[in-house]
């Protein structure tokens, strides 16, 4: 795995992080292309299954980006998402994937800079960690 470029899936709430990503673009703030943004109507709509499937398909990192605490457009979708992420982290540990590969973050629609910063930090963190064991196993399987 030379020149490892991590694949990161970011589930972004339409009302905050996704708009923040737009904001980052219009402010000409760059963020790593490793982050694949999936727009969701609310972070609370992200299911454990989406995260697990992302890892199964070879993602090296996943994060869920929701609204700031108390600012959820649907009241408490973001806090539900945070609990779900904590639950999936434990499951990842059981499977044997480092739970640090999964994160819950919050931001507001206006935080273009924060969006770019989170995307960069997550990419760098995962780059340091190396490929997810599943990604690595898939690659080995293909090579063989």
């Amino acid at each position, binding site marked *: 795995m030379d020149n490892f470029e991590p694949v990161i899936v970011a589930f972004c709430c339409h009302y905050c992080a996704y708009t923040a990503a737009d904001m980052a673009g219009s402010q000409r703030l760059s963020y790593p292309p490793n982050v694949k943004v999936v727009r969701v109507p609310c972070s609370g709509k992200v*299911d*454990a*299954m989406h995260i*697990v*499937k992302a*890892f*199964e398909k070879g993602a090296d990192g996943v994060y869920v980006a929701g609204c700031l605490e108390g600012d959820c457009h649907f009241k408490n979708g973001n806090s539900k998402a945070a609990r779900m992420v904590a639950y999936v982290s434990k*499951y990842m540990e*059981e*499977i*044997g*994937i480092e739970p640090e590969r999964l994160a819950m973050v919050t931001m507001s629609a206006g935080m273009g800079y924060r969006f770019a910063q989170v995307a960069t930090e997550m990419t760098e963190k995962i780059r340091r960690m190396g490929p997810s*064991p*599943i990604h690595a*196993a*898939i690659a080995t*399987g293909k090579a063989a």
Partner: protein
Amino acid sequence: MITAERKPLEELIDYIRPFRRLLLVGCNECVTVCAAGGRKEVGLLASGLQMALLKAGASIEVREHTLERQCDPEYVEELVPMIDGVDAVMSMACGCGVQEVARRFKDKPVFPALNTKFMGASERQGVWAERCQGCGDCLLGKTGGICPIARCAKQLMNGPCGGSTGGHCEIGDDVDCAWALIWERLKALGLQENYVEITPAKDWRSGGGGGPRKIIREDLAE
């Protein structure tokens, strides 16, 4: 409902390690409601098992199927077209469902993915608590609708032990004293005299003490 929780992944992997193709069977009834073995949990477990094995340099093909009701032979029959294509079955139903699948497919290994816990109710979102032990001779009519068999840690039938404190059971503050609840309810109903009458020693034959139980409805039985 019958409540259950998934077994640790490690235990499940030990069961399935020798096999190449696995049928993972969920159930749409109780275990779906308590988020242990419905369609969604089947999906999550299938992914988890595949990833865990892949990581260990092995692989398994997991086919997913969720039955309407796994404790009913009529629905288990649905698995017939799938069964020949797999080496083993893992059931995400309660123990009743696991046994029904095992009974139907005698030459297939069948493993439980869940630990069946108790008959309970949902106290709030995500929290289930024991309510009934199926003693076969319901006392609830005399105890204000709160069961001392299922909800008193010592299944006392004649009142609270000396460890009841501030409405809590002696085993922990997170457990209500069943008799404190019963007493409050009897008072609310004006039925305090129900407490005075001694409940005699229970006949446990109806509760499984007489061996495995069976119900036969003659009008329905074929």
